């Protein structure tokens, strides 16, 4: 019988249906898929939006010790973003421990030194380990810097000097990035990793159940007694697991896309440019990877000693691809060479990044890379089938 006849055979179709029913009827697997795909993006986007809101709307508590010596400085700090208390005296460290995010200390001699052009010192105390410490330094420097610039100009003017004399040149910045390419740095890394994680997480429970689970329930022996080839059994299981893994990643993609409309991306100069065409392309590019993840997870679970062992092994190993992607992204490795694009996982991550930023992908390389992934899937199926036929994958139950 040819492969086509095998695929079209009623036994095989019944097997696929049985595997699909088992996978999709497994409430635990569905809960994991829905939980991860819905909650994880929601938490990420929610925390992102919240932190942005916190940064933009929270007032910093500032104490000025000795403000009587230079009220103009205090005037300058008033405005949005600061809540200011004026203190005659106080120990900065204790004030920081109490309720203040920053303490500005002005000395008694400030006024005299200022008038005598002696450049008196002002001390800014912050707790660098607190979230608001760094922001306090930046905002206070910005506001006092504006006043300082005004005073500098006045001092120059008083001496008959044009401000340009102290500006030997003007640096004009030309930023060649686009709003979507700026988005690549944020969305291009985060989203592909999240989608690949969704594949791994959503496939794990059904992979274990359909392999180690069946073995523990001893139903796999019944399956092996059916007039079916080993590869047909593996393919049926892979298709079933892929269906839920792929569904999970597509759901993640949909939830993320919707969530981006809630994020104030435009306020940080970033644009979410992926349209329907890009999202459809991303969906199809994920399919070969979903097949590969499913077949690898099934093979690994079949090789494990028990159901629990399979759970432990897959839990440990499913973090590896994500860690690998993060390392590759954070390192200086140039990933745009064809060799990297043909490498499963890395190739997909690259294309998803580009599509997420609304940019074009190298279609021939994407097709070739997908074929490489599919070839690996085929190879794994053959390995699984041979092992099944020798019962070597049945392990010690």
């Amino acid at each position, binding site marked *: 019988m040819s492969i086509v006849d095998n695929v079209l055979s009623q036994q095989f179709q019944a097997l696929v249906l049985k595997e699909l029913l088992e996978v999709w009827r497994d409430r635990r697997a569905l809960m994991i898929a829905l939980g991860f795909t819905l909650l994880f993006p929601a938490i990420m986007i929610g925390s992102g939006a919240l932190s942005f809101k916190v940064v933009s709307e929270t007032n910093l508590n500032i104490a000025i010790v000795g403000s009587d010596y230079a009220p103009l400085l205090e*005037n300058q700090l*008033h405005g949005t973003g600061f809540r200011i208390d004026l203190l005659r005296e106080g120990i900065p460290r204790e004030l920081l421990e109490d309720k203040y995010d920053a303490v500005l200390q002005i000395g008694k001699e400030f006024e005299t030194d200022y008038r005598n052009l002696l450049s008196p010192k002002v001390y800014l105390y912050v707790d660098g380990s607190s979230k608001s410490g760094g922001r306090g330094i930046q905002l206070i420097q910005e506001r006092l810097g504006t*006043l300082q610039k005004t005073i500098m100009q*006045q*001092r120059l*003017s*008083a001496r008959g*000097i044009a401000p340009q004399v102290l500006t030997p040149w*003007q640096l004009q910045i030309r930023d060649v*990035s686009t709003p979507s390419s700026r988005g690549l740095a944020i969305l291009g890394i985060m989203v592909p990793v999240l989608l690949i994680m969704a594949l791994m997480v959503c496939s794990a429970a059904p992979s274990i159940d359909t392999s180690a689970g069946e073995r523990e329930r001893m139903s796999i022996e019944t399956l092996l007694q059916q007039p079916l080839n080993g590869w047909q059994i593996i393919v049926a299981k892979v298709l079933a697991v892929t269906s839920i893994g792929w569904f999970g990643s597509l759901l993640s993609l949909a939830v993320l896309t919707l969530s981006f409309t809630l994020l104030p991306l435009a306020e940080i100069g970033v644009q979410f440019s992926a349209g329907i065409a890009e999202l459809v392309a991303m969906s199809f590019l994920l399919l070969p990877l979903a097949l590969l993840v499913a077949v690898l997870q099934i093979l690994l679970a079949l090789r494990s000693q028990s159901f629990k062992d399979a759970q432990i092994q897959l839990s440990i190993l499913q973090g590896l691809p994500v860690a690998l992607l993060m390392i590759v992204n954070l390192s200086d490795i140039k990933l745009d060479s064809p060799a990297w694009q043909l490498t499963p996982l890395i190739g997909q991550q690259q294309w998803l990044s580009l599509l997420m930023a609304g940019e074009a992908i190298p279609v021939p390389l994407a097709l070739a890379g997908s074929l490489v992934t599919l070839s690996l899937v085929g190879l794994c199926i053959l390995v699984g089938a041979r092992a099944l036929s020798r019962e070597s994958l049945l392990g010690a139950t």
Partner: protein
Amino acid sequence: MVWMRRLYFGCLVMGFFIAHGAMAAEGNGGADDCYLDGWQYSLQCSRITVGKGDTQVKLAVMVSPALDESGEEPLYLLAGGPGQAASDLAILLNKFRKINQTRAIVLVDRRGAGLSRPFSCGIDRNTPNELEVISKSLADCYLQQTTFANSLSSRQTIEDLELVRKHFGHEKISLWGGSWGTRTALLYQQWYPDSLTALVLDAVAPIDTKVFLGASAAEHALQTLVRDCQSDLACSRFGDWRGELEQLLINWDDSAAKKFPDPVTGRISEQPMSLWALQSMIRAALYSPEASAQLPFAITEAGSGNYLPLAGIAGFFSDTTTGMSLGLTFSVACSEELHRISEEEVAADIAGAFIGRAFLEFFSRGCDVWPVPKRPYSKPEPRHHPVLLISGEADPITPPIYAQKDLDYLSNKQHLIVMGGGHINSIRGCIPDLIDKFLTSPEVKLDQACVKDIHRPPFMIGAYGPELDRRGGSDSKGMEQGGSGSD
């Protein structure tokens, strides 16, 4: 001496000067990426050919696309002058980022300005600041390019804007106009009301207002400065510095003019500071709150023979690169403004004003050698578009009173007045946010409370700068700086 040659750019026309300002676009032809000084990101630039023969111009159009494609109507920025280029306004994009999130911002260099065949007549920052020299250059220029000079007008600019709007397929647009750009916007509203959604007008020059009668406006700005100085404990110690200014101008002679220092070289100027240039420089300082905060001290010092602080204020304009095209300036000013000013009106305007005829002199002498045809405006017809008016209380060329008394025909307007504000206030304090809110919901009345938080910078009190140990004035809290000044 270059500083003095450049003085008229900042003080003799109705434009406005902002930091950086200079333009230098790259790219040509279709919608290419290009850059303008003052804005670090690329814009989409294209050329649209308008006019024929001698008057043909490839209009430079620069677009900063919206980040969110939410379909909001674009905002077109109209520059002042007449003669300033929209490409000079790129620095405004830094403050208009929020506006730019949902709507494209479009800059069109009108014919004769900026990158659209600039009509500068060879008069630039290096031309000596002498009326005779400028007048001679203008006369030669008019004879050489009469057809082009006669062709330039507000009507033509508005037809070009309408062409650009259609070219980009913008169904409706909103306009931001600054200074003379407000006149262009108001005329566009008259002629193409159906193309408009809303108007934001900063430093308003109503159609019926004779804005070149600027002496009393300049005096009003100076009097506002006097008032604010008197209410400041430290500044009030200067006493009657307005009176000292009067004496300084009356007694200004060749000997004083020759002693005026050059703020760039630090030496005595080779070119004496004429009375006309001195008056113009003081008037120019009133455009910017930063420069005007130094006037009481500088004038007091000048009264006792120390001209260095005044020279320092003049230095504010030494690197002003607004790219004002004086050919365009005179074509529009002479055909649309100067002809409708009578000698009686001039006499009433200059009475008691420190600037005297100095401001008008520049234009009347220029128009003598620039005989373009008169182009009177029709009486404005009622319009109901939402309009946001923005005025600086101490604006020396377009004071708030203009917007208050000459825009009765606008039924749906709101007016923001920045206390102590100079010329152009759109980038100060919370004004960019208010503009964004207005454009998003033009029918909603704005909460103007935050405008009160915009204050003058601290007055210069001594060689050390402002006083630190006294609060500036009765209500001075949280000074906001970096406004329309040429810092």
